[in-house]
């Protein structure tokens, strides 16, 4: 057993025992393995073991051209694929100092927000499922399906789109795109009330989430927990506000933030963020300017030698890309600072001395996507 768990023996105290949550466990949403040290039902230590789905995306990026890198970023955080693509596109456009058409910026912003809603919907339903409310799972997936239909009509695929290219888009949006998006917003404004009725207000849910896994602002900053999880702790860290890209500087939206910092806060922050995203889409969807769907780009993109850093607000937090180029068509180093990987670090800190059921709730509230951790 010792070799498998891979721990120093002295870490086990009397009356403590380990259980392995994962790599096959219903609540880790993938192949994450948590070695949990328990005393009774109380969690004493959580040691994440990652790497079960490590594909070496960063190594693969070193042999790919910048257009080809985009399809790899889809597969990191598959729930916010567009936003990952956006980061690469912004990095290349910024390095080449290409001005993309206004229409592209609008479309990208709308699609990013749709993607964010879809991601949060999937998070909501799996969060409900982790707490035992199985019906939530189907309601969330039902509504997410509508967004995926919008995506499928315009870009031809439902999950991994590779729709953005450096300089613009793969093809123009479908003529039905605006109508469908508006229909969806109308539909989802109704359905999100159900979300509140079935889970947010529920007394069992409140008991399960309030005061569980409290993360203070200092802890959030020190551990680098960004995104809705960090903002629920009171840390104003929204890249969309701090370093606006796309047309986020032209739209009016609130940066969701809360001060409670517990599981309930993270839950409410994400629900509010869905509402804010709908607000952004509503402001933009009727005002997409006419124009080209792509700037003129050379077929072979070579970044000038140097180093570049680009950050975007993914559905889970700050996605950063650090790129070193030597002037060739492939990068020397292409590093992804993925939000799930950093957010995972805080799991041990905030779930100590909680019950094992709380560990599941905390893990779900951090919204970890395993391929995003492992890359």
């Amino acid at each position, binding site marked *: 057993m010792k070799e498998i768990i*891979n721990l120093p023996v002295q870490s086990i105290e009397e009356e403590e025992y380990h259980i392995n949550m994962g790599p096959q466990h219903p609540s880790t949403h993938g192949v994450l393995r948590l070695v949990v040290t328990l005393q009774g039902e109380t969690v004493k230590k959580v040691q994440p073991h*990652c*790497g079960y789905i*490590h594909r*070496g995306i*960063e*190594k693969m990026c070193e*042999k790919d051209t910048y257009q080809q890198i985009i399809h790899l970023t889809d597969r990191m955080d598959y729930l916010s694929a567009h936003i990952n693509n956006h980061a690469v596109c912004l990095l290349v456009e910024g390095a080449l100092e290409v001005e993309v058409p206004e229409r592209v910026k609008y479309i990208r912003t709308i699609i990013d927000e749709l993607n964010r809603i879809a991601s949060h919907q999937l998070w909501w339903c799996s969060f409900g499922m982790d707490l035992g409310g199985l019906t939530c799972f189907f309601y969330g997936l039902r509504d997410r399906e509508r967004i995926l239909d919008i995506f499928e009509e315009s870009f031809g695929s439902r999950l991994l789109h590779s729709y953005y290219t450096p300089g613009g888009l793969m093809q123009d949006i479908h003529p039905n795109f605006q109508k469908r998006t508006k229909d969806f917003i109308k539909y989802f404004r109704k359905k999100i009330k159900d979300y509140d009725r079935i889970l947010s207000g529920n007394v069992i849910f409140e008991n399960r989430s309030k005061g569980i896994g409290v993360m203070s602002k*200092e*802890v959030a*900053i*020190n*551990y*680098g927990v960004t995104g809705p999880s960090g903002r629920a702790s009171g*840390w*104003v*860290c929204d890249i969309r506000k*701090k370093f606006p890209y796309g047309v986020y500087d032209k739209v009016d939206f609130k940066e969701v933030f809360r001060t409670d910092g517990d599981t309930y806060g993270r839950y409410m922050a994400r629900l509010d963020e869905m509402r804010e995203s709908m607000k952004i889409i509503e402001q933009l969807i009727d005002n997409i300017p006419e124009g080209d769907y792509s700037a003129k780009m050379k077929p072979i993109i070579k970044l000038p030698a*140097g*180093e*570049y*850093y680009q*950050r975007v607000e993914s559905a889970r937090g*700050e996605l*950063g890309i*650090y790129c*070193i180029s030597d002037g060739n068509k492939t990068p*020397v*180093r292409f*590093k992804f*600072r993925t939000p799930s*990987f*950093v957010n*995972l*670090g*805080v799991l041990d*800190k905030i779930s100590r001395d909680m019950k094992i059921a709380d560990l599941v709730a905390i893990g779900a509230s951090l919204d970890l996507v395993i391929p995003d951790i*492992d890359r």
Partner: protein
Amino acid sequence: MEAEKLIEKILEIVPEAQLEENKQFPTFLVPSGKFKSLAVKLKEEKELDFDYLFCLTGVDWGTEVGVVYHFTSSFLNHSVELKVKTENRENPEFDTVADLWKAAEFFEREVWDLFGIRFTGHPDMRRIFLEENWVGYPMRKDYTDEVNIVEL
């Protein structure tokens, strides 16, 4: 803090640091011996107040390996990029910053795993993605693996 003042301030702390050209952040190449003391100052001094390590990257430049740190201050909103390099490819070793920024704990384990750079003082220096008995450091430029890496 303004970028120029920030550069001055850091050069004041570590005069040996070399300023590198970068449009986005003030970038310094810091001698590895001085790095830890600079990091402590960055974290502790009220004027600097770099409380958020947002990226830590291991890099293989070909002849030398090293680490790139990106710091920012969540309150003062200024950022800095620091680099440490070494030519010792066999057994590179730097001081850890995991005691100052907890976020570095996982980052440093990743760098150790993929680049083979050790961090002295790290609380839990194990491989993070690969197995303990993995031979080599896959992100190095000279790493070869005929079985698992398919050249197209």
